[in-house]
């Protein structure tokens, strides 16, 4: 058994500490040590985006980040997107737009889409497709996902201006 080290971080706005071995990815640590199983393993080598989380304000493939690397950093997972009991606009639009079928890629898309819309809520269809090209979906053909993201962006822009 490898020696574990203590990592201190902030996850979804709360201080969090966990032990992990050098060889454990952030994906593995989130799922096994902190119980946050929302991020999913699809490929374990950075090609599907199902493991997307926010790390210091940037979306990353958590399978390509080591657990030890996040010491002192801020992480947001899909579990931290809804505020108290209210879904975020991205989540609500995914539901109303039927933008998920099996749902395995949905957490990764929601984290990535929110990151994109936080920067640029009125991103065009092409910009959205480009920015989300790192998130694979095999069920939906992306159509309803893109529409849901565009609708969420519109609502976020209206909320900001109103």
């Amino acid at each position: 058994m490898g020696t574990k080290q203590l990592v201190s971080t902030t996850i979804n706005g709360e201080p969090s500490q966990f032990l992990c071995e050098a060889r454990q990815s952030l994906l593995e640590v989130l799922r096994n040590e902190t119980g946050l199983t929302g991020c999913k393993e699809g490929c374990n080598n950075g090609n599907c985006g199902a493991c997307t989380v926010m790390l210091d304000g940037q979306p990353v493939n958590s399978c390509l980040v080591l657990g030890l690397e996040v010491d002192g950093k801020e992480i947001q997972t899909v579990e931290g997107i809804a505020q108290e009991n209210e879904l975020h606009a991205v989540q609500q639009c995914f539901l109303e737009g039927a933008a998920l079928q099996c749902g395995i890629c949905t957490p990764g898309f929601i984290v990535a889409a929110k990151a994109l819309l936080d920067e640029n809520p009125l991103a065009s269809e092409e910009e959205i497709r480009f920015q989300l090209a790192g998130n694979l979906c095999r069920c939906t053909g992306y159509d309803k996902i893109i529409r849901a993201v565009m609708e969420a962006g519109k609502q976020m822009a209206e909320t900001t201006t109103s």
Partner: protein
Amino acid sequence: MSQETKQASSNGKYRVLGTRPVRHDGADKVTGKAIYTADVKAASMANGFVLRSPHAHARIKSIDTSAAEALDGVLAVMTAEDLPDVTDKIADLGEGSVNLAHLSNNVLAQDKVLYRGHAVAAVAAVNVHIAEEAANLIKVEYETLPSVTWVLDAMKDDAPLLHENLYTSSGGEKADTASNVGVHLNFQQGDLQKGFEEADAVVEREFKMATVHQGYIEPHAVVVDWNHDGRIKVWASTQGSFTCRQQTAEVLQVPLSHVTVVPCEIGGGFGGKIAIYLEPLAAVLSRKSGRPVQIVMRRNDVFEATGPTPGAFVRVKLGATKDGKLTAGEAWLAYESGAYPGGMLGPGCMCVFSCYDIPNALVDGYEVCLNKPHIKAYRAPGATQAAFATESVMDELAEKLGIDILEFQQKNAAKEGTRRVDGPVYPKVGLVECLDAAATSDHWNSTLEGPHRGRGIASGFWFGCGLKSSVVASVNSDGTINLTEGSTDIGGTRTSIAMQMAEVLGLDAQDINPRVVDTDNIGYTDVTGGSRTTFATGMAAYEAGLDLQRQMTERAAELWDCNSEDIQIESGNFVSSSQTATFKELATELFKAGEPLVGRATVAPDCSTNGFGTHIVDVEVDMDTGKVKILRYTVIQDAGKAIHPSYVEGQLQGGAVQGIGWALNEEYFFDDDGEMRNASFLDYRMPTAYDLPMIDTIIVEAENPDHPYGVRGVGETPIIPPPAAIANAICHATGVRMEELPMSPPRLWKAIQQNQDGN
């Protein structure tokens, strides 16, 4: 942005059907709360890892697990010796059948490995890293054998033989020499020679198609707890908990009733999660270690060791008169079945001419073993390969005759009364309606301008299964209903099933609480697959609703002191000459007045849904690179009745995009040693959001007479037309007729060069 999406609607006939309620499991899925199998944590759970063959074909001379067993943290190690001997028994899994000896052998190899990735041993340890380390300490001595990975090569007399006891079955008659050819099928109709003599134009082409994978984002995963009382609990990512239970019990040779399968939320299946791979391994490791064991497949193992769908060689010849009437059709098909026999040649042969009325036809097909994983269904199994050939030849024949391709399809379209080459006559079906919808669509009537741009059209057919479903409906005191069912929900079916119950009872979709439960808690239910779930389990929900109505009518008669014949159901309300009550009002009253209300239904409808679809695609080809851009795509399909239009559209769009990937990029690339060189999402290139436009849909509703709401299965047909539609579009854009899948940039570029050199 979308140009056109024609939506199905309730048309005023229904309250709930045709609307778009938010799915019942939605909140869990968008917040990360939904539990998929890899998320399951059992107390003291150990982790497993599977050791797999690096060779495509080899004899196993010895396996030494001692070093693995000695590693700190290892709890159990197993090989095929730990699995019971299973005779050559065929188990009927409801949806397809399986040879148990082959299934067991595929789960863990005994004397031979038949493909790279074939499982050889498994380890359980305190964590997955130690399990993997231990697996790599297992010493396996192999004697490598020559391997074969292309279907035509595997048919040759001197091809390496995979099974010494496999004899070609031709209509049930077995050959007397062993072969890699497991099955030979033949269908005939009319007089082929006469048919071709009557033709004014004939086109014949040969097509090659590479192996492709379903590409579900969630790898296979199981957790198994072999309890100390001999009961085995399985959490699985499965399309069918009951078939999983049966296969697991059979491979382990334990009583069926000792196995419980809990279907977790599932991250895609498309036909690839019906056969088992990991369950018996985790079970035996759990028994040996005394702890629950979780095994999750790595992505490369998913590619190399599950069930991709067959590569194939198909030759199609069609003849027609100068005014566009098909007179004859001949098809020769060779389909891979992978390491074991038992594939999808049958449906391929039945579908190859299924869209058309061809009075004189001959279909000859062969199913061939070779050193690749055992193939499995990918949506409509075997149909896409056949359609690629036929729809390409149709397009070329139309051009030769100088007839518009859509008119050519319409002129020959299968309809009620058309006899398919394998024999049956179609009941009422919707291909003509799909073609008519294509003809009047905005897409077909829009102009496509610009260099190297072309438009293609293709149609497809899939049967749609019926099979068995069970539901139970318990009425709550507030008149809402807990609907218990056994159909794993991969695409929103729990909602479309709930909607059918809501419709019959005059309730809202949100008044029904659908739950997918384990095999101990619901009657037998066949797989979520075969385009059957909204159709068959929905039918069961409808029947259970009727059962509740019958019970409530009798109880209301007691309450209201009248005869039950005096109570009518009007829009779900209970009406007598002097009283009227909604379902909810009556349910609340009855809760105070006697026995609880529980309804039930079981169904086993015949396969009849007959789903036809037509796709239109515009492409632009970069002549310098061979890259194809999809400019516009429209899916037209007959859904019979779209219960939840968003999820019908989702099936159409998702299936079409899988077909686009199949057409343009996806393939298993094998080297000379039979090793797949692109077993990752990086190099097995599936479509991303950036590769595609919006996918428009037109839902045709030619109601199915065999369902109370007219539903036809829709999930599989959408994957059939895309490769041919895109090939046809590429031909119209470049003048090049592609005969190989995928039509990836290097292949298309080369074909363009050759075409230009030829000119």
